């Protein structure tokens, strides 16, 4: 894996790659990347004769869960003043982290008037994302408090087996799917449903605003069956079928005769839940360049086969309407094409910006002769950040004063974005800015 910069400097792949200046992570989250492995769940309670004991633990027969309990006994069932505080302790000797939320319930029916319990989660120590489990530990404690106060679910022996099954299902579901929906049957007639879902740590951060000129692209395989569409809200029912990786937010709004802000809101929601990623609008006028992530692609066999499948020309018809058979793309061609997307070295001496538009690139490289659809090639590259769009950023070299345009030329706003804001042709704007002599232009 190519080592990349963390914060200040990046070359290529980064927030700019997708135009996602609000934070590059949105749309690129996968469950497997982050969630630490769940090693076990244990339910401990205070026994009036024996002190803190394990009531149940999953997976059954795992000695490490018991060892963890003995290590952290004093925190799992702590002093009463420590109840309802969230604790997470790393145990290096056992290579795990224990997440705890001790609870006590006072009632005269309990022996000594109090029932103390703690449902603790044990996760692998290697991941630092154990915080993902913290809300679940607390939520689980809140559910159990409710169930105990209402139905004596933890103390009544008739629920003993069911309690164990609940823990087992939760352990299996959270380990494999990252979410769990459990139905607890009370007195054979009532059903209480418990919902758990692991959330990535960046949840809770405001998702970036959606630019109307960005193209939403599905990053999860979604089969839009009528049953699934029926479940959606009215707006999503209309918008989601229009997301094809080609139409921009504004174009979708025009097709559906909706306000673009409504479409943007729906897309933002989908973006937040990692259903879609956003890529800049595909234009033959744009210049795309390969980023260092293309090296990761070279080594990733799964991504290569996905790419070869995605970038091939779907169907080509001749003048007589008959289908023309297209060659299957080869990896060497695709990879060479990605590498060939770069800023040309020549022409630099002339002072002209050596920008090669996609149109010129297509004319030179002829990807279609190799069975490769350049539009799909670019979209695949943009989504996986092998490619980024090259933009020209003006930097004002004089004191901007109160002039909003000069202030906007701070190296963070591209000529294209400025042209959109001021409703002017990007070429004309670039020419005007250059003519004024107050700007330097950085291409990145």
């Amino acid at each position, binding site marked *: 894996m190519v080592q990349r910069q963390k914060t200040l400097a990046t070359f290529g792949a980064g927030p700019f790659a997708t135009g996602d200046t609000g934070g590059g992570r949105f749309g690129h989250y996968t469950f497997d990347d982050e969630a630490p492995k769940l090693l076990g769940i244990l339910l401990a309670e205070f026994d009036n004769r024996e002190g803190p004991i394990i009531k149940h633990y999953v997976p059954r027969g795992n000695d490490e869960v018991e060892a963890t309990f003995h290590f952290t006994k004093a*925190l799992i069932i702590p002093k009463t003043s420590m109840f309802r505080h969230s604790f997470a302790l*790393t145990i290096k000797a056992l290579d795990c982290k224990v997440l705890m939320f001790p609870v006590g*319930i006072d009632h005269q029916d309990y022996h000594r008037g109090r029932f103390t319990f703690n449902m603790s989660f044990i996760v692998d120590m290697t991941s630092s994302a154990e*915080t993902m489990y913290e809300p679940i530990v607390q939520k689980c404690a809140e559910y159990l408090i409710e169930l105990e106060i209402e139905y004596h679910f933890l103390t009544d022996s008739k629920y003993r087996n069911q309690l164990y099954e609940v823990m087992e299902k939760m352990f299996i579901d959270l380990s494999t799917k990252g979410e769990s929906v459990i139905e607890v049957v009370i007195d054979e007639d009532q059903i209480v449903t418990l919902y758990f879902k692991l959330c990535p740590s960046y949840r809770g951060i405001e998702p970036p605003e959606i630019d109307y000129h960005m193209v939403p692209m599905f990053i999860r395989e979604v089969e839009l069956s009528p049953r699934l569409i029926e479940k959606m809200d009215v707006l999503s029912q209309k918008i989601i079928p229009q997301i094809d990786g080609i139409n921009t937010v504004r174009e979708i709004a025009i097709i559906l005769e909706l306000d673009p802000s409504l479409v943007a809101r729906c897309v933002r929601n989908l973006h937040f839940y990692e259903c879609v990623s956003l890529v800049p609008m595909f234009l033959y006028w744009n210049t795309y360049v390969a980023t260092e992530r*293309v090296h990761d692609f070279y080594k990733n066999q799964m991504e290569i086969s996905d790419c070869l499948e995605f970038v091939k020309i779907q169907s080509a018809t001749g003048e007589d309407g008959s289908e023309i058979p297209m060659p299957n793309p080869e990896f060497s061609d695709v990879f060479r094409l990605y590498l060939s997307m770069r800023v040309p070295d020549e022409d630099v001496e002339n002072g002209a910006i050596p920008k090669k538009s996609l149109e010129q690139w297509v004319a030179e490289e002829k990807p279609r002769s190799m069975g490769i659809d350049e539009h799909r090639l670019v979209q695949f590259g943009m989504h996986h950040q092998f490619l980024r769009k090259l933009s020209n950023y003006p930097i004002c070299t004089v004191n901007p004063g109160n002039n909003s345009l000069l202030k906007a030329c701070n190296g963070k706003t591209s000529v294209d974005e400025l042209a959109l804001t001021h409703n002017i042709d990007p070429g004309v704007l670039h020419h005007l800015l250059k003519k004024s002599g107050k700007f330097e232009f950085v291409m990145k």
Partner: protein
Amino acid sequence: MTATVGCTSECYLHCVMCFLTGQTGERIVSIHPRRKATPRACPVEPQVSSAGKAPSSSKAKLTCDKDDPFGFGKVETEFDLTLFQLGYAFKTQEIGCNDAFDMRINNQRFVGWPKTWKPLGSSSTNYQISIIFALKPGCDGQTVAAYQTLSNKIAVSLVMQQNYTGYLEREDNWADIAERDHADPIAEFAKLSFMVPQLADMYTEVRSRGNIHRYQSNFIELGFCDEAHALSRLSVVPKGRQEIDEIVRRMKPYHGILLLEDVWPTPDANPTVAKLLSHCSPDRSILDMSTASGIPIFEVFMIIRHLIQWTRAILIYPLCNTNIYTSATSPQPLEKMAERFAAQFGTKIHLAAGLAHFNPPQRLDTFIRDNLTLEEQGVRAKLVVALLRHQMLMQLHQFYYILKPYSNAVLPKPKEPCPDEFWKLIDESTISDDVKPIVADISAEMLETVAYEAVKRKLTLFVQAAPMMNGNHHLEDIKYKNNLDRAEMESVFTSFQLVIAKFRRPDFVAE
């Protein structure tokens, strides 16, 4: 060169505490800085619906007892807990002592390294000392490890002093005195203790500089570096200990260094450090520095490793006219930087002009041109160094892949077949099977215009370099590892360009 451009650097250190167990029991005897305690949140009772089967007439409620601590334990903290509660949570079983401690309470992270100590003359009783650091949310594992190491170092030095002079016993007695008759035992203990002012000083040093170099009680040397914080304070991409160690491991004689701050060797430092620093400049490689100073290269490596690990320098490729640079793509706080650059370099050249020049990528000699005045050349060289230091400029390197030609490429059609000797060379190489026949054809076609021995030499070099042509090694590396001349290597790559794909990117080990 001194630091010129600062950026907002974040230090994860929030506060430092001292947890001490002694004859009176376990307690936190110091917390620095003391911030205003947050009003303690009262747990909200869950609503029990009237339809629920409440087992009896009285309502069940959640336990909400309070302790009745005394002395240090009474002190409320900003963490919604008293020092008594924190002390209870930090109390580590003996099995967990002498190992890293990491605990999160209500989303607040506490790290340390508890150590055991014994009173002088006693062989059985084991007490504990732990310097606990409260870290801000969001810190990564490397930062946590760095503070655990610091906690360990401080604890080791305290235990050592205890073994010599009964230091911790004395501190424990003073804690008893402070606790006994005073309303504010923390403040009272701070007045009496030798340890508390030292902890406060260390806190200030870490927060302001990211590193510590001091002598505990004037005789135990204590050094520590929060690498990420120290680097970000100097506007350099923050790197943790692990990444720095990886850089050090991959350091080669062709690399150079860029000093981040004025480095003044301490009086007891090895005299070769001062000698090496006087020969240190951005256009010299490690090998050059060794040759110029007469210091053996192994020793140069050791010193440079030390400088990098203490965040006094970063690894670069020596400045050279043929180097290709580009400006980094991430947005930088340009306005402030431009002002500071103008203050340092004058108004002759704007920071943006430097950045604009290198985007698209350019060779260094197109910026520092020979036809400029020497003064101007000097200013431009300094500007490049400053841009490199703040990683606003990045050097690009050429990486190579051996790949099949384009499917529509015109392939060589030699008149004569490839000689057996060449085929043997190709067959034994690591080149993939689909490329081997093309390499043979290229060699055979080359024989039509070039002498046999010359072609054989080129093919041998190509085969030799083939294992490194997988996108992981740049030209410098290939050249260095095969002990070859750059021009010769480039000529080989040109001859076999049909099966080579090139890509220019930064080498992130050095950047």
